[in-house]
């Protein structure tokens, strides 16, 4: 007779018991950095053993006990190797607000990392075009850091970042440092006219359209609001890129992160498992259907 598994016990602190993918591991906020007026980066450290290493593009489910749980992309350096997780959260709802307001020492639940990655390992020898709109820069930062850490593996590395205004760029100091980095082509552009900004003014598709690309040797990584993804992808397709060489990070309501709750469906895709990074050949027909 099969024995029913005994009542679940409190396993090693910080580590959820095997077979309990819905129970978070305990992490503490180690550092809180305000990025913009409504975005905060948290550096989280595990209370117990480190979790699995994340791959650029993946997300975790972060919870503030009693408030809720949301899917947040990992925005830190994939090579950090110290078990910490850096995640950038925008205050758009009750849970994200609670996360943004958390302080060093606070308990945060972490499940994951989950989902597909940008797949840098498949782009060796190619030109990388990385396009970020608004907070879309957060899940792309690990890709840029990963490319910089192995710069010789890629030909051109181009980073195009759009924000609404100068004060709303994430990681501004790092962006400025990247702008001065040889071997990295960086274009920043803002949507709204601002008298304090002497840089380019225009939608993120515009510097993208001016790039002189070799489409057959290029892989593009895109993250930002969905219409921006469509418009930017259109520009790249117009320049001769194959849809399969364009990778987009998609977003839907997520509750479990592990393919069991049904919320994150986009047509046949479960974005927690088949995404969030999806190639545009697969994504394009789905994004074209209203209210899918």
């Amino acid at each position, binding site marked *: *007779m*099969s024995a*029913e*598994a*005994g*009542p*679940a*016990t*409190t396993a090693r*602190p*910080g580590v*959820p*018991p095997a*077979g*309990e*993918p*819905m*129970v*978070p*591991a*305990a992490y503490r906020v180690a550092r809180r950095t305000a990025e913009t007026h409504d975005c905060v980066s948290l550096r989280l450290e595990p*209370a117990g053993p480190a979790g699995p290493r994340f791959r650029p593009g993946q997300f975790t489910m972060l*919870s503030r*006990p*009693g*408030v*809720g*749980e949301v899917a947040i992309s990992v925005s830190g350096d994939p090579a950090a190797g110290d078990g910490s997780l850096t995640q950038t959260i925008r205050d*758009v709802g009750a849970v994200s607000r609670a996360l943004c307001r958390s302080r060093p020492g606070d*308990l945060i*639940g972490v499940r994951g990392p989950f989902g597909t990655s940008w797949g840098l390992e498949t782009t060796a020898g190619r030109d990388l075009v990385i396009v970020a709109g608004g907070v879309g820069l957060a899940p792309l930062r690990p890709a840029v850091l990963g490319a910089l850490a192995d710069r010789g593996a890629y030909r051109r590395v181009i980073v195009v970042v759009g924000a609404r205004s100068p004060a709303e760029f994430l990681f501004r100091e790092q962006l400025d440092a990247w702008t001065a980095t040889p071997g990295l082509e960086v274009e920043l552009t803002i949507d709204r006219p601002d008298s304090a900004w002497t840089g380019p003014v225009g939608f993120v598709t515009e510097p993208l359209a001016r790039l002189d690309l070799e489409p057959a040797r290029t892989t593009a990584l895109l993250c930002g609001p969905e219409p921006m993804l469509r418009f930017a992808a259109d520009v790249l397709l117009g320049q001769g890129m194959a849809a399969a060489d364009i990778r987009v990070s998609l*977003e*839907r*309501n997520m*509750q*479990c992160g*592990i*393919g*069991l*709750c*049904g*919320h994150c*469906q986009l*047509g*046949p*895709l*479960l974005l927690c*498992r088949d995404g969030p990074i999806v190639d545009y050949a697969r994504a394009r027909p789905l994004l074209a*259907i*209203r*209210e*899918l």
Partner: protein
Amino acid sequence: MTGDAGTSGTRAAAPAVLTRAGLDELIAVLVAEGYRVIGPTKSDGEIVLAELSSGAQLPAGWGADSGPGWYRLRRRDDEAVFGHSAGSQSWKQFLHPPRRPLWSADGATFVPAREEPARYAFLGVRACDLAAIATLDTVLGGGRAHQDGSFARRRPGLFVVAAGCTEPGGVCFCASMGTGPRPGPGYDLALTERTGAGGHRFVAEVGSAAGERVLAAVTHRGASPDEAADASAAVDAAAARMGRQMPAVDLRDLLASSRESPAWEDVAQRCLTCGNCTMVCPTCFCTTAEDSTDLAGRAERSQRWASCFELDFSYLHGGSVRASGASRYRQWMTHKLSSWYDQFGGSGCVGCGRCIAWCPVGIDITAEASLLAQLRDAAEQAGEDDPQ
């Protein structure tokens, strides 16, 4: 896993016969072995799945009639206990509870919720519902990267007594979905109930080692070849008496190519987005998580059944992706009949017809599928007649 419900077809043992008293014995044996026996009972004007302590609780002599938007019991002229089609509940509520606590947090750690260990024995699982249990297995259970903890604990110890269906209901279409009326693999025992000449009896087939062992503890005799043939024929005959059927097209392909069909606006005129269909469907599995706190600062998170018809099911960035009723109905039907293949390798629909009976406005998924097929044919015809 001990090989309980799940292995079948390898038992070549000849069918046995249980009397009505033998069925009561079977229940008693299962109860004595520590199973919580769940079976049909009559309550509140319908067939309700409840825990049985004895066979006296079975709905002897009750049949059911159903159609779009209605389900009614009627008195039979015999004492059959399985002579009714499915009630609003399905077995999923015992494998995938409507509410379950996930964890609590006391400020320092996350403590998984304790779950009462329970071993279930399901009595009277029709072919459609047996297929539904197998479908839930592919979604929630073993072999996946992440299993649902509750399902993973309850499924291995499950003992299934299937019921061969001889009286399909007005909303049934398991035959056209390929899931019945003969129970497929996955039962420990399968009973086909016969009344009338020869007495009230159950022709029993063994489907697993556990089923063989339990049957051995119950009074039974071997079935004669005529008895076995009669039971088998009755189930086969049921296939020809289904209340309705899906159109004979590739449903996966039909739904995948119908996202812009005018049919969705048409059904949206009727659909209340009440979500009844998802609650009664034996394979709908979506959940939503909820949080609560108490004044002492303890936080808890729990999971409850959710429905893709809920307006905020697809909430994102301040609004819902699927705001219109048409998009939500399209999501449900397309997922059930088409995207399920992409996500889980097969169809999500088992043809039980509950969604038809329990829809307050009587929407019939088979009729909607037929409409989609007709509209697609008409569009193709128009394209052929007027090639641009």
